[in-house]
């Protein structure tokens, strides 16, 4: 499975969201609140075996922004 599909799957599983997750932003759905955000961060760390810095967790405000942030951890996600 490609990193992109893994990345999408983390969003789908974290939020149990049936729609298009590539368009998601923080707080645009009820499930992506502060609790959902932490569950998403933990799931990404587990999936890609990384440990996110606090600043990156705070900056992680959308699906697209997350791709840029994960690149800093050598997790390349190509759409």
């Amino acid at each position, binding site marked *: 499975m490609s990193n992109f599909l893994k990345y999408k799957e983390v969003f789908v599983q974290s939020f149990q969201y049936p729609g298009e997750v590539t368009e998601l932003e923080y707080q645009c759905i009820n499930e992506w609140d502060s609790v959902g955000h*932490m*569950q998403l*961060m933990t799931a990404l760390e587990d999936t890609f075996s990384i440990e996110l810095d*606090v600043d990156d967790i*705070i900056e992680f405000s959308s699906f697209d922004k997350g791709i840029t942030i994960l690149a800093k951890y050598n997790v390349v996600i190509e759409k």
Partner: protein
Amino acid sequence: MILPMNFDINGIKSCQRNRHPLLFIDSAFNVIPGEVASGIKCFSYNEWFFPAHFDDEPVVPGFIQVESLVQTFLMTFLSKVELRGKKTNFLGINNVKFKRKIVPGETLTIHATLESFRRGIATGKAVSFVGQQPACSADFVVSVPDILDQFKPKVMS
């Protein structure tokens, strides 16, 4: 080596925000902050719920057993100096099992384990006994909003 800590009722109140009539555990012992905690709850007929549950057969309501478990679980991390006095919220309760009735005059002994505490979300479990007999058990996910909020994205207005 960390020496286990003991907390009387005032010590428990300094760690968690639950208060009478919803603070159930009487004492906590063998507390290793960030790892484990044990708690005691003594049930006498003076408890406010016994006359109502039930008038002809007083037994401890299930939700009070579960709350006693989670209050012991809270001691596994709210006993850490930097977390004392913080409010908590339930995120999940799973695998709740009740094995026996608890009646006036019995004492519940609870053992809780913290499995992880990451960025304000604690996961773990608690089991309880009356004497040597298993009473109830559950797995918990609890948040500390003050900590959680430090990690949420900034929303552009």
